[in-house]
């Protein structure tokens, strides 16, 4: 047990001695240097352990033999120890990172570094205001000096601006300290109370607080900080952004008790504003380090806000929120700054060098996900609890601003991420040199991030191990990534089935039903991925992560568990989409919309009342009366995932650009997660119908989605895009029939969900097979493939009949149920629109089968073969499924009927194979037999009585007595429904796309115009600071 004062004195002493030690060689001085830093960490670590786990009381060290207030006292409590441990660890690792630099530079660098650490440590521990000033000046001066380690014009000028701004701030600080002394006669924080101040005295507190606050870089008085982040060496900047910020943040925390509430509110709001605007401006940023700078500033703003708004909460919760943000932000930020130093690329577009560097990419990914606040990292939990807290406190404006800011942050961070994975190929690929000294600290920090998330999940929330399974899956598959992909695929298949078996005894049939869609559907689709050659690194991990999160949605008990699985699902599907060749834009769109949806859901869940029973969410939600706002927000969140009209624009991109064997998962299964969620909202809704009928409007949205999706699908040239829009349209049907909120409606929604899972999987896999052979998705480039790929053709044929709803296949059942339910409910016009949509669906269905399989075979496809067996197997499994439920509809109708009966009175009668509703009846079995009969009889007739039949080839056509020029010009495929487009006229314009495009343009140009504030001129920055002080002064109304 070492006296904590030694961490100050040791460093200080070493600092002075180093000049001497260096005479006997740099090696020795480096040893001493790192020794001291390690020792610091060790001492603090020990203290932290004692204070936290052994409940040792807070240590107070009085210097100069007197007790406070006569002398300066240092305090080391748990909080101090936490911050110090963290700061010293970062300092140590930063020093390791700077190893090369320290080896070459003048010894003063080492000394300054040590002095800076002294400043930080002192700043954290001291309780005396003036002492704080001294330590902060030590810290500042050493930092200024450290900046000169790299003597470039940029770093020097940034340093100069930093100094001026810092000088102004410290002047305010000094004035504040002086006046506080004047008014209270005391400088020790422990002895200053709010009550001591008169009205005039508040100015002194204000000066003090604003000085500290300016050091925390509030918007817009933070131009200097941005310049420093951009210009200074990565190693140093990570210290500035992390260690310094942490210390100053802690100072703010220390002086908070003496600040009056109205100050705090103003600072809290200012923090939120900083968070919002810096993230907004980050949108426009192209320089990696400056981008991190914006993010950094924003996060500090959020930290301050969270600190202020959570003060009244129980300690543990507050520690989770503030600590979560603190930890998450600073660790991730340090790591990312280090990575910028390793990559050494300024422009984000040049970051695609990372593509070839897996270890660095993994680190980068972990830190970025942590920074953006995705689970399982600390920021996620903090954000969840923070939003919940704010919502409970009815601070909706703050919630909105923070979430919007977070969304901006996600956008620019992941634009960076996706650019580094999928950036332009044009830039040259230089391999990045991975120096051990630089990689080591980064790796450690990434490790710590993961460790902390594990700790939170285990100790704070105590989740079922199932909920860690998605992450575990990624880790395990990464461990065995050296295996060929076939083996991994089979293992994954086994894992999925095992998982299904594990969660099998489900509490209710509705879970079981969605379980079949999620788990069995995925399992069959995995067969399609077995066609992969090579290793396909990382693929199966993400796939398993996604499938497990689907499953976890079913068994989630609390809102948080549900939301956690939801976010896992989003992450994994995002990364899966990103694996596509040109998926940068598509995956970004997907992520933006998903994140926005997730945030809405977060607020929605926060608004929701507590659960009363301890069963799975889908069941217990029926006892919960969701408020209208929660219902709306949750519905929008789920509808974003299911691609409803208005928020559908991510859907075609994501489906089209994902790898072709991933698309079936996204379309057939991922969209069903949205359906599942919406059904969940509906379950609560039917039991507690509020006055305002939200689901009526959801019904309309669903109906319009169906029609618009169908039209858009008809106008596509890209096969996968067509199928994507088709999915949108079909899910529109599902959403609309959920919104009916009747027995028949839900029956049809679930029936169609199941059907859609099967036919859309099969269609996407069939297209995957075609793509695999022809290497094109553009439909008019294909044609005539029926001769080459008959098995795929048959599967597509059966599936499009199933989609279109033509009897005798199961699609008709869905249509019958839907129309019956709509008429029964009295939604006549909606039913009319759906009729229209189902008519339009013929357009795209014919288009996809004709332009790919019929018509003229191209020269380049004369030698293509049937799709690989791995694509054929799942298709035919789905065909068997479709045929089975078409032939024997009771197989599916009866169980679904029982599920829907849980919530509504049954409105259908099942008698043998005849299913009757109040409106009509339908006997799928008989229809099948009759259809077979009427089909077989003419067939036999034709076979018997047809004359001599000659099979001819593709060019043996009547071509107005000419001969066809080439297959390309003879194949009618391009812009097939041009006349329809013409007929639609102005209705055919992509308005929604335009709208979102405008939103994007608008926010970017707003960001651009706001960031003009930062002119780069030091004097402007001073002016900003002074103006900021004045404005805050007036707002806080001292």
């Amino acid at each position, binding site marked *: 047990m070492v006296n904590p004062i030694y961490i100050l004195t040791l460093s200080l002493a070493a600092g002075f001695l180093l000049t001497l030690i260096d005479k006997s060689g740099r090696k020795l001085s480096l040893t001493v240097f790192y020794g001291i830093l390690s020792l610091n960490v060790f001492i603090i670590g020990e203290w932290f352990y004692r204070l936290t786990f052994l409940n040792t009381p807070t240590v107070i060290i009085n210097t100069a033999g007197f007790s406070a207030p006569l002398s300066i006292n240092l305090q080391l409590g748990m909080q101090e120890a936490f911050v110090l441990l963290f700061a010293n660890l970062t300092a140590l690792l930063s020093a390791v990172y700077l190893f090369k630099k320290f080896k070459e530079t003048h010894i003063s660098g080492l000394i300054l570094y040590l002095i800076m650490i002294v400043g930080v440590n002192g700043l954290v521990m001291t309780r005396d205001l*003036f002492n704080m*000033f*001294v330590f902060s*000046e030590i810290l*500042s*001066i050493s930092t*200024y*000096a450290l900046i*000169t380690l790299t*003597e470039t*014009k*940029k770093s*020097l*000028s*940034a*340093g*100069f601006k930093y*100094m*001026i701004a810092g*000088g*102004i701030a*410290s*002047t305010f600080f*000094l*004035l504040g*300290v*002086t*006046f506080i*002394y*004047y008014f209270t006669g005391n*400088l020790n924080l422990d002895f200053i109370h709010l009550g001591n101040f008169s009205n005039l005295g508040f100015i002194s507190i204000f000066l003090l607080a604003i000085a500290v606050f300016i050091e925390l870089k509030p918007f817009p008085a933070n*131009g200097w900080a*941005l*310049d420093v982040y*951009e*210009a200074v060496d990565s190693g140093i900047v990570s210290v500035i952004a992390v260690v310094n910020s942490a210390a100053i943040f802690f100072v703010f925390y220390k002086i908070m008790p003496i600040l009056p509430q109205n100050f705090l509110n103003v600072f809290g709001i200012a923090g939120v504003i900083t968070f919002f605007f810096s993230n907004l401006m980050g949108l*426009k*940023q192209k320089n990696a380090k400056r981008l991190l700078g914006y993010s950094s500033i924003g996060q500090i703003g959020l930290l301050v806000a969270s600190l202020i708004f959570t003060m009244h909460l129980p300690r543990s919760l507050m520690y989770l929120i503030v600590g979560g943000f603190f930890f998450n932000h600073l660790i991730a930020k340090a790591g990312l700054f280090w990575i910028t130093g390793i990559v050494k690329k300024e422009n984000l577009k040049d970051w695609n060098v990372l593509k070839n560097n897996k270890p660095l990419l993994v680190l980068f990914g972990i830190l970025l996900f942590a920074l953006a606040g995705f689970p399982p990292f600390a920021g996620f939990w903090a954000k969840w609890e923070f939003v919940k807290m704010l919502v409970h406190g009815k601070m909706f404006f703050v919630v909105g601003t923070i979430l919007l800011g977070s969304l901006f942050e996600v956008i620019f961070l992941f634009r960076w991420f996706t650019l580094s994975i999928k950036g332009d190929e044009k830039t040259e690929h230089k391999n990045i040199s991975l120096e051990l000294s630089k990689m080591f600290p980064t790796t450690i920090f990434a490790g710590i991030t993961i460790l902390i998330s594990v700790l939170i999940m285990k100790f704070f929330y105590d989740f079922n191990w199932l909920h860690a399974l998605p992450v575990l899956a990624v880790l395990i598959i990464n461990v065995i990534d050296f295996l060929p992909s076939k083996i991994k695929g089979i293992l994954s298949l086994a894992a999925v089935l095992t998982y299904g078996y594990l969660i099998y005894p489900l509490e209710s049939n509705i879970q079981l039903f969605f379980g079949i869609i999620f788990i069995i559907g995925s399992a069959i689709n995995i067969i399609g991925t077995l066609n992969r050659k090579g290793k396909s690194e990382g693929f199966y991990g993400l796939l398993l992560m996604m499938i497990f999160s689907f499953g976890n949605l079913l068994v989630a008990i609390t809102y948080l568990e549900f939301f956690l699985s939801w976010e896992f699902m989003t992450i994994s599907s995002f990364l899966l989409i990103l694996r596509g060749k040109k998926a940068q834009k598509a995956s970004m769109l997907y992520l933006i919309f998903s994140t926005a949806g997730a945030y809405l859901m977060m607020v929605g869940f926060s608004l929701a009342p507590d659960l009363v029973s301890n069963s799975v969410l889908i069941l217990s939600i029926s006892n919960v009366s969701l408020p209208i706002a929660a219902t709306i927000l949750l519905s929008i969140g789920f509808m974003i995932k299911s691609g409803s009209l208005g928020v559908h624009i991510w859907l075609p991109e994501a489906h089209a650009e994902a790898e072709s064997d991933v698309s079936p998962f996204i379309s057939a299964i991922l969209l069903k997660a949205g359906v599942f969620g919406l059904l969940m909202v509906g379950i609560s809704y039917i039991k507690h119908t509020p006055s305002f009928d939200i689901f009526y409007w959801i019904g309309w949205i669903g109906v319009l989605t169906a029609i618009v999706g169908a039209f858009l699908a008809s106008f596509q040239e890209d096969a996968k895009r067509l199928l994507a829009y088709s999915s949108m349209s079909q899910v529109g049907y599902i959403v609309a029939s959920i919104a009916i909120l009747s027995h028949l409606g839900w029956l049809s929604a679930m029936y169609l969900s199941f059907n859609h899972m099967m036919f859309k999987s099969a269609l996407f896999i069939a297209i995957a097979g075609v793509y695999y052979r022809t290497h094109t998705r553009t439909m008019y480039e294909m044609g005539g493939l029926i001769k080459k790929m008959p098995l795929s053709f048959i599967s597509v044929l059966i599936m499009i009949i199933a989609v279109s709803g033509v009897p005798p296949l199961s699609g008709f059942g869905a249509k019958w149920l839907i129309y019956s339910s709509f008429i029964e409910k009295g939604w006549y016009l909606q039913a009319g629109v759906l009729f229209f949509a189902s008519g339009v669906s013929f357009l795209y269905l014919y288009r996809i089968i004709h332009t790919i399989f019929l018509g003229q075979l191209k020269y380049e496809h004369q030698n293509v073969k049937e799709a690989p067996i791995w694509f054929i197997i799942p298709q035919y499994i789905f065909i068997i499924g479709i045929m089975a439920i078409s032939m024997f509809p009771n197989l599916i109708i009866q169980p679904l009927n029982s599920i829907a009966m849980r919530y509504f009175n049954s409105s259908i009668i099942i008698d043998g194979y005849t299913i009757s509703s109040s409106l009509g009846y339908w006997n799928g079995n008989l229809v099948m037999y009759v259809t077979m009969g009427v089909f077989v009889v003419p067939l036999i007739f034709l076979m018997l009585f047809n004359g001599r039949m000659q099979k001819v080839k593709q060019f043996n056509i009547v071509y107005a007595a000419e001969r066809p020029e080439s297959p390309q010009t003879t194949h009618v495929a391009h812009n097939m429904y041009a006349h329809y487009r013409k007929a639609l006229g102005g209705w055919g314009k992509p308005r929604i796309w335009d709208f979102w495009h405008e939103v994007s343009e608008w926010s970017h140009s707003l960001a651009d115009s706001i*960031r*003009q504030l*930062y*002119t*780069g*001129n*030091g*004097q402007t920055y*001073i*002016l900003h600071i*002074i103006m900021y002080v004045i404005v805050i002064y007036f707002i806080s109304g001292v």
Partner: protein
Amino acid sequence: MIFSLILGFLLLIIGLYGMLTQKNLIKIVIGFSIVDTGTHIIIVSIGYLSGKTAPILDSTVDLANAAKQVVDPIPSALVLTAIVIGLAVTALMLSFVIKLYQKNKSLSIDDYQELKW
């Protein structure tokens, strides 16, 4: 005391004005220095009580009544530290200016704004 307080604030504002209006880096540093000085004057003036002596325990000050006879010693102590720190900062600023001038042969702050937005 009031006079010196006002003087301090006046210097502070003059310094700030100089920092905001002068383009020359050196002049900006001078402005900063003036601000610093202003601050110091303010500090000292707060602790000053008219008619009292310096807080040095020597023969003129009675040890028992020292608290009544001398001005508050803490501001003076503070100001000493602050002066030292201010000096260090000013020196460092000037060294930055020198380095900037060596590198770019310019002392105008307008020439150092390529870092922006």
